[in-house]
């Protein structure tokens, strides 16, 4: 018998028991749709994390030191090294009150130089960056993030206005483009960016810096640059060979790798769970196929009596179980894509169409049909014609 006729026979047999067939497919549908959702979420998470981290700039690294901080000499010395393209100090402080007219809120200050905007790839919506004079002259100028703009300016044009930061008047000279928020929920747009000189004398009253931000010339030079920076600080701190660093150089690539590893592990774990449900779905198919074979023993006998060969019967039942599992797989793919899309939509994560996961999960459900359908099909094919015919 040719495959087309076998397929028609299989579809009819499935259609005869619509309820039973759909219930049987539920296992596969759940398995496949969870594979699709989980793989999709994993991919989206990876891209979302990458986007977050690359706002940091892929060429960039930060150096920080828990005990003793950096000073202006470090900036001067490092700037002379060929590898260092941009370098900015960071003076950081949180819970800083900012007031405009009758509105006020708490924000964070970033004391930096103009390089910082290059390193972090931060664009302005309006206004301008600091001038060199403003940095040396400790000018009271500030570039604000969009959250600050929303909260205390109510989205009115802030440029040229004066705000009070920790009771010190500052002139707003720029408005940052929207940055988004971190996974931790930290709002990158609730910031007040000012010259580091101003921040250290007028707000923090400390000369040293919390962190240094450095950019290499390109992504390929990040590792090398990080090593040069490391050697600079080891020498400066007189660390003997073998002693551990007393500071840390964090590259964005490194962070990216960590994030990718986490999401990869997560994907594998979730895909594993999904595979287990596919397996359970397969067992369901096997169960129903065994029932089907014993219900249709007489039919098998009739087919054998009029000339069906062992392989005809084997294929008939295999095609039936593969059809069950593949249709379940296709429905599962559609369902999974919808669920994935819905979740992504609410999380505002990027939607990533993975044809690979669609093809693999379809092939997998196909394979489940063969694997779990083979035993019942063989049972049917190995019946003796006369026993099958006499079966009541």
């Amino acid at each position, binding site marked *: 018998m040719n495959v087309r006729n076998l397929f028609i026979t299989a579809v009819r047999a499935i259609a005869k028991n619509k309820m039973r067939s759909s219930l049987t497919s539920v296992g596969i549908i759940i398995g496949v749709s969870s594979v699709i959702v989980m793989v999709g979420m994993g991919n989206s998470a990876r891209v979302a994390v990458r986007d977050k981290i690359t706002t940091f700039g892929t060429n960039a690294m930060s150096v920080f030191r828990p005990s003793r901080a950096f000073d202006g000499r470090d900036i001067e010395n490092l700037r002379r090294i060929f590898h260092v393209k941009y370098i900015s100090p960071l003076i950081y402080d949180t819970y800083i009150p900012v007031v405009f007219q009758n509105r006020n809120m708490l924000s964070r200050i970033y004391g930096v130089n103009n390089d910082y905007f290059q390193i972090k790839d931060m664009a302005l919506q309006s206004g301008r960056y600091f001038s060199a004079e403003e940095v040396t002259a400790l000018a009271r100028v500030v570039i604000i993030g969009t959250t600050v703009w929303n909260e205390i300016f109510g989205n009115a044009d802030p440029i040229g206005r004066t705000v009070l930061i920790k009771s010190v008047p500052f002139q707003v000279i720029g408005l940052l483009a929207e940055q988004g928020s971190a996974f931790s929920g930290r709002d990158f747009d609730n910031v007040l960016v000012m010259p580091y000189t101003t921040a250290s004398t007028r707000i923090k009253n400390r000369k040293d810096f919390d962190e240094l931000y450095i950019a290499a010339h390109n992504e390929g030079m990040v590792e090398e640059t990080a090593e040069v920076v490391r050697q600079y600080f080891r020498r400066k701190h007189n660390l003997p060979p073998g002693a551990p660093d007393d500071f840390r150089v964090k590259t964005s690539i490194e962070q990216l790798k960590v994030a990718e590893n986490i999401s990869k592990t997560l994907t594998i774990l979730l895909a594993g769970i999904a595979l287990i449900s596919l397996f359970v779905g397969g067992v369901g198919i096997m169960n129903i196929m065994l029932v089907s074979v014993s219900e249709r023993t007489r039919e098998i006998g009739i087919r054998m*009596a009029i*000339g069906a060969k062992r392989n005809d019967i084997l294929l008939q039942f295999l095609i039936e179980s593969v059809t069950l599992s593949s249709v379940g797989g296709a429905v599962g793919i559609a369902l999974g894509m919808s669920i994935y899309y819905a979740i992504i939509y609410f999380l505002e994560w990027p939607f990533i169409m993975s044809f690979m996961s669609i093809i693999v999960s379809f092939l997998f459900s196909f394979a489940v049909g063969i694997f779990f359908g083979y035993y019942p099909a063989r049972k049917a094919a190995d019946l003796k014609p006369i026993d099958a015919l006499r079966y009541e």
Partner: protein
Amino acid sequence: MENNIIDIKDLVKIYRLSDEVSVRALKGVSLTVRRGEFISIMGASGSGKSTFMNILGFLDTPTSGKYILDGIDGSSLSLNEKAEIRNKKIGFIFQGFNLLSRTSALENVELPLMYKGGVSPQQMRERAQKLLAMVGLAGREHHHPNKLSGGEQQRVAIARSLINEPAILLADEPTGNLDTKSSNEVMDIFTSLNREMGITIILVTHEPDIAEYSDRKVVFRDGLIIEDAPISKRKKAAVTGKSR
């Protein structure tokens, strides 16, 4: 071509029910059937008629003995070869019709052709339709077996058994579930198949009336043939009266 289509010698069938209990259903049966013969098999219930027919039809295997069908030694055949012989050389008609219940009459008739392969769907349809018309079921092609009377179902089964132009028809109590009128219709069909197409027929029946349609009567008792004789006054009137 050999003159004998069937050559059976010392056929024995023993059913093993357990280590101690076994049933000797056939105790050494020998029979030769000439091409074109119409044989009826009779005998009491349990005498081994169905067992014998199942072996003839390659549905079951004998415990010992020789069975040659159309020059082919049954003992040397693989399962697939047996399936092929069932498909091409043998037509079965059963007491219980054995049609696929949720499949139309037409598709039931086509089924052996599908297993044979190499025939286009249009050709299948044509041949099946022709056979259904021949057994008087034109216009009933798309009826399902449960919408047909017993006699009609048996005629569908006859059409199915003929579609691969078998050399021999094996019918195990084909009229056992039918009333007299339907029985006669079915027997008329058998007679004309035998006369006009030269198909060899072996038919099991309990009814002497039915046996009278055949040329030769073979009687079983306790797994042995106890009588094998030609039928002198064969029922011919019923057939020749009708032109088929």
